């Protein structure tokens, strides 16, 4: 089994060392960064497989790192990790290009799984993120602008619902009588829609959440 090279970007030193200690053997932490500048530099130098990215950081936060690294054409994969479950943070980093979002309460084993999944090019959704997506793509009277991007298929909805219910990918596969690979395909497809859709509800929904 190949090891995944990971860069940890977080402004809390204690948290970085905590994550380092918790990660499984298949993960190799090749570096740490504590702000936007050092993160962009370290990513360019070290070319990690996966960047564990904190959402709130001095100098613009995770979204700024995503903008600068992905904007320069890099293919590095990001997994966002944050204490916040605020909707605008979650949707913000996903639309910024992260391949997954998990909260810092996640266990070491689950985080290891999530990193491996992201390094394979798949998406990682926490139950809460799945809930947000279902909420944002909830059926409305207005017809979608781009039917391919602006609505979820029945199957995608089922998969998200199971994630929101706390099912692991393997359990979802068993429940729906499909393979884990198919589950991953559905989740990746949802991620793509989430990133590319210009559906009004998505931004309006996030804004409304913040304002209420």
């Amino acid at each position: 089994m190949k090891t995944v090279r990971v860069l940890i970007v977080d402004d809390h030193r204690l948290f970085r060392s905590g994550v380092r200690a918790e990660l499984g053997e298949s993960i190799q932490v090749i570096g740490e960064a504590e702000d936007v500048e050092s993160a962009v530099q370290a990513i360019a130098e070290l070319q990690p497989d996966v960047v564990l990215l904190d959402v709130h950081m001095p100098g613009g936060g995770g979204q700024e790192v995503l903008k600068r690294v992905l904007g320069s054409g890099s293919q590095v994969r990001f997994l966002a990790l944050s204490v916040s479950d605020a909707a605008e943070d979650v949707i913000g980093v996903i639309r910024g290009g992260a391949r997954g979002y998990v909260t810092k309460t996640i266990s070491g084993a689950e985080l290891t799984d999530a990193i491996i999944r992201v390094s394979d090019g798949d998406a990682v959704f926490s139950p809460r993120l799945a809930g947000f997506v279902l909420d944002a793509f909830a059926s409305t009277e207005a017809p979608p602008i781009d039917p391919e991007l602006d609505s979820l298929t029945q199957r995608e909805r089922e998969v998200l619902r199971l994630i929101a219910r706390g099912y692991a990918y393997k359990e979802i596969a068993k429940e729906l009588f499909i393979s884990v690979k198919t589950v991953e395909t559905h989740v990746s497809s949802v991620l793509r829609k989430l990133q590319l859709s210009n559906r009004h509800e998505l931004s309006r929904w996030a804004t409304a959440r913040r304002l209420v």
Partner: protein
Amino acid sequence: MSHAPEAYPRLVRPVKGRVIAGVAQGAAAQLRLDPVVLRLAFVLLTVIDGLGFVAYAALWMFTPKEQVKGRGPARDWGQFAAYGVLWLVLAGFGWVTGASSGGFGSWPIAVGGIGALILWQQADPGRRQRWMTGAVKQVRTTWVRTIIGALLVAVGAVGFLAASGELAKARTGLVFTAVVVGGILMIAAPYLASLVKELQRERTERIRQEERAEVAAHVHDSVLHTLTLIQRNAHDPREVTRLARSQERELRNWLYQPKQDADATLAAAVRRIAAEEEDAHGVPIEVVCVGDCELTEGLSALLHAARQAMVNAAKYSESPVISVYAEVEADEVTVFVRDRGKGFVLDDIPEDRMGIRQSIIGRMERHGGSARVRTEPGDGTEVMLTMKRDT
């Protein structure tokens, strides 16, 4: 008001803060007066027969300059412009009324000047300074407006006096009065605006302080309190986790969640129940809600059943975490309570066990809903509760 230099301490002309040569400032320091007072006095005296000009020139000649190393700071040209404009207006007024040649006509100027000085002296120093800096800044940025205003005042005054000779044309006089008032308003507008701005600034500052006080009070009441409790319970990991967890949830609600009335909507009620059971049993309960709606009688029954399911999971399953998922759809509401604990065989539950049969399944059916329990030994338990929305 004497401008003669006293013997003690020697009168000098300071460089810092001077408008022309520092004469007025030096004399003011000597007399322990505000330099503004003396500057206004000089301006006023200059209007009357050029007296101030002579006095200033004489003092300039006889007073030594303050010793400063290197180049002194630049003049405050904003103030210079302000006094210049003031002088122009007074001179224009004096010329028109003939007041500058002394006699009865100079009395209004003297009275007005003294009144202005009294007002100026009465304002407290801090406020005076703010007025002054505000006004100077305004003059600097809006000097065009100031000059136009001053011109209008002059034109208005001249016109009014010209018209007052012919009472029949009183209407013209009124027009000119309007022009005068307009001119004064135009001059005064920036000062009034700066006052209003000042008031607003104070108001926002006060609001910010109140917010800060609220945050401080909140941190003190909750976070500091919990940290103290955690230190006291350091020997009991379970209790420490419970305290940290409940504090985290509380802080999160305060920071991110919209202020909801916990008894009004379904999502808020689900979160509240999960929080209560988490506190009671020390097992983390993760809640995800999709959609929301008003509570009805049927939904209250659903919530009771959901609470019972959470209690069962927390008490018996030995699962490290419980997932709760509530979804509101157009016609029905579904709540899932899932654990990854040891599970059980449904048929082995004795008939008289109230939890599952009565509190969950029975309750749901009585209110027109349904409950489904999926469990297998070693594979966790999931309770699915569905209730139609009565619309």
